[in-house]
């Protein structure tokens, strides 16, 4: 025992080696009859609901199974996932810029960031998407020109702002306004002394943002941003307004309109949204674990 302690590095606590000497109390586990009763009641209720749903012919489970992996549906899942990921990426990049602009000394940048949030948060997403859809009508040509002078380059808008691009920009810009507020809250939660400590080391502002502030803000930013990502997943069903016609909701609606059977195809869409949400939650869990380093309640022992 003594040699055990001596061989340890200075300062580490010889706790675990001592536990052998302790006679533990014999603790009888508490009984929980209420829990067992609740489980029994719940099991009966769940079985009954399960039976009611699975044997009800109105749910058309055969149709559900037939269309769950239908090519249009799977393609719709792909597009919905793609829209979610790209629009979210656009939103994160724009919100990152906006949050730095809002913190800037430059009053023009601050005002611009403030106005952006004010506008995109203050108008309905559906209206915004309609306008993105009408963009090519409003501005048939996009051109770079010298003001009041000759045009340098000119392109027809419909080749640039395609329905997919309109959907991504519409969803992404709208989301960026909300994310800016989330990011701002994250950065505001950090002790001002952290930035001062980095400055005192001689770090320049971009490095301070990237290496010191961002990783700490992430801990606060990720849970609500995960919420927003899941919200975005379902918001993609609004791209019908543009109209963008390849997403999951549009695909299942089209099939149900053809079959006159809305219920099984709503179930198909619901199943897929639930599956993707579960996937996003797994991703969030790992991100939270990564950025929780050093501050989590149950610290991962580095040794």
């Amino acid at each position, binding site marked *: 025992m003594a040699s055990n302690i001596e061989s340890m590095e200075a*300062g580490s606590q010889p706790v675990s080696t001592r536990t052998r000497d302790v006679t533990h109390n014999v603790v009888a586990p508490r009984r929980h009859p209420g829990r067992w009763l609740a489980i029994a009641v719940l099991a009966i209720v769940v079985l009954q609901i399960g039976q009611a749903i699975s044997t009800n012919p109105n749910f058309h489970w055969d149709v559900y199974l037939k269309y769950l992996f239908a090519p249009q549906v799977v393609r719709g899942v792909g597009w919905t996932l793609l829209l979610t990921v790209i629009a979210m990426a656009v939103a994160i990049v724009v919100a990152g810029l906006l949050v730095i602009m809002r913190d800037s000394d430059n009053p023009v940048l601050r005002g611009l960031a403030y106005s952006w949030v004010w506008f995109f948060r203050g108008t309905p997403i559906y209206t915004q998407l309609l306008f993105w859809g009408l963009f090519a009508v409003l501005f048939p040509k996009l051109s770079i020109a010298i003001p009041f002078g000759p045009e340098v380059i000119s392109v027809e808008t419909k080749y640039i702002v395609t329905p997919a691009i309109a959907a991504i920009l519409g969803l992404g810009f709208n989301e960026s306004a909300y994310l800016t507020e989330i990011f701002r809250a994250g950065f505001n939660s950090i002790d001002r002394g952290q930035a001062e400590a980095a400055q005192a080391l001689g770090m320049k502002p971009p490095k301070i943002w990237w290496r010191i502030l961002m990783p700490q803000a992430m801990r606060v930013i990720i849970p609500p941003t995960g919420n927003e990502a899941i919200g975005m997943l379902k918001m993609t069903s609004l791209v019908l307004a543009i109209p963008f016609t390849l997403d999951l909701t549009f695909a299942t609606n089209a099939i149900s309109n053809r079959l006159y059977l809305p219920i099984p195809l709503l179930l198909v869409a619901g199943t897929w949204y639930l599956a993707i949400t579960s996937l996003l939650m797994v991703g969030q869990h790992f991100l939270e674990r990564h950025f929780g380093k050093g501050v989590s309640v149950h610290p991962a022992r580095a040794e």
Partner: protein
Amino acid sequence: MNAIVSEFCVEMQNIHKYYGPVHALKGVDLRVKRGEVCVAIGPSGSGKSTLLRCINQLESISAGRVFLKGELQGFTERNGRFHQLSLSQIAAQRRLTGMVFQRFQLFPHMTALDNVMEGPLHVKGWSKERARAKANELMKRVGLDGFGNRYPGQLSGGQQQRVAIARALAMEPEVMLFDEPTSALDPELVGEVLDVIKDLAQSGITMVVVTHEIGFAREVGNHLVFMDQGQVIEEGHPRTMLASPKNPRTAAFLSKVL
């Protein structure tokens, strides 16, 4: 103009600082020679921490000049006018100083060793091996050999402050600034941090220490400054000044804390 070699490592001339209408520093002069351990004491709100933070430009000054090793800080002077330096020029000037804060301010998302390596690696651009070797050497110097893999949250206050000292030293600064380094510590942990600072003082590095530890000032300091209400009231050698203060305000303060 910047080439004037000064005998003073830190030279502050007629520093004024306003926070809105509050006149926090009222024309302070401070000269710290190379290798000197300058200790600033005084009641809370006397401006001693503000003065310290003006040295590495964490506070902007309203009037006056700060020189480090003869180089004007924060500005260039041309034709009688001050021109503000860019943020990266200011960052470069800050490498002359290392700072230790009252509340440690270790980066909580990095291990102790990564905290110490951060400056050499990402400010000086050293290689990983060189930065790690330096960090390990400094962790040993502050008595925390083997604690490198711990996160700040897994260390006691005294250990955290010693890591913070190692982090500041890793940049090999000309001047070490201590802003009440033991004020946030439990009483039994004060000693271990003061021991590290004493050890540093004996190594000959120039230091400016703001503290309430009068005993430390007497034992380690060789230049004591007493501040009150934004002014330097009295300065001199700690032992003579603590034994027989000339100014009645100094005497009144010392009678309360000794």
